């Protein structure tokens, strides 16, 4: 016999399962990035980004956006432009080579506790008849120069609808939308959106030694990205 009570319980369990399955799961900084709290790095050497997008200029432009936010999180950030220049003087021009150097070299040369690797996954506009979107997606990783372990990693993505709004979809409106999208593409500054992508990944980074919340932010929640990263 199924009692009324049992049905209510079953309903409750089912709805819980549905809710868990749909929305994002949350983790905390402390459980997601315990090695940041164990190793307590003080400095980050920001390397030029690895450009995996179709836009050749993305590398130079994105490079100008990383120094400030990571410093504002409380870390000593080495001057990005100067570091890139020095590496060239040492004969390393290729980012690919830079990303494959043994990590202790960065400790030896710069005295850096960690290295920040960034990959520009997407930096482009896709034109569609119905809608045109601009997508910027950045994958960032902080790796220890002493243990070579990844201490932190997160991906920030921004998708911008360039035409804007949804309407009846008549032919005249579609043409208008394509024109609007073309104008918006010409005037849109990708870098503004890159700053937003940075904000979407950096909030998950544990604060560094120059920030008031250093070692006090373990319970701050963030969206779990583990399945995407693996």
């Amino acid at each position, binding site marked *: 016999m199924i009692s009324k009570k049992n049905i209510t319980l079953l309903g409750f369990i089912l709805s819980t399962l549905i809710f868990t399955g749909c929305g994002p799961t949350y983790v905390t900084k402390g459980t997601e990035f315990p090695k940041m709290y164990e190793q307590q790095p003080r*400095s980050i050497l920001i390397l030029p980004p690895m450009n995996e997008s179709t836009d050749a200029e993305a590398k130079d432009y994105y490079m*100008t*956006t990383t120094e*400030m936010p990571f410093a504002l999180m*409380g870390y000593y950030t080495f*001057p990005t432009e*100067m570091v890139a220049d020095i590496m060239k003087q040492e004969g390393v021009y290729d980012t690919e080579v830079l990303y494959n150097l043994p990590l202790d070299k960065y400790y030896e040369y*710069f*005295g850096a506790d960690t290295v920040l690797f960034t990959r520009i996954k997407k930096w482009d506009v896709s034109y569609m008849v119905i809608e045109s979107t601009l997508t910027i997606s950045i994958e960032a990783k902080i790796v220890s120069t002493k243990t070579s372990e990844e201490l932190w990693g997160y991906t920030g993505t921004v998708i911008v609808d360039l035409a804007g709004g949804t309407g009846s979809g008549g032919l005249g409106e579609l043409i208008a939308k394509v024109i609007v999208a073309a104008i918006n593409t010409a005037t849109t500054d990708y870098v503004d959106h890159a700053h937003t992508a940075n904000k979407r990944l950096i909030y998950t980074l544990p604060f560094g030694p*120059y920030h008031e919340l250093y070692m006090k932010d373990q319970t701050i929640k963030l969206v779990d990205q583990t399945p995407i990263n693996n």
Partner: protein
Amino acid sequence: MRAPKKITLFSVLATGFLITGCGSQPKPLYNYGDYSASYYHSKKELSAESALELQKSIEYSIENATNSRSNRVAPGMYANLGYIYLKSGNSAKAIESFHKEKSIYPESAHFMDRMIKKIEVAEGKTND
């Protein structure tokens, strides 16, 4: 009739807190000024003007550093400035800036010492 008075006092206090909470934004940890925008501009349009604009934004950020939560010059700013001096051939001012970076941020000491030594070797001032 004490209760209404209390409520009035409470609401005055609450309103006060609300106004303070909305109006005053916390200062950023460092004062970067226009550094990020000038850096981007210098990459977008490589020219003598954009390079000068970048140098000015770095100088502004250093001069107005106390207008921030940390009261300190932001990481890398003195190093950036020193590197600009170095590229323009002013090694004395470059070394001075690298020393300043090091004194504010000991994390940079290893790198700054390496830069200073490089300059000294290039100028034949080293003893070893």
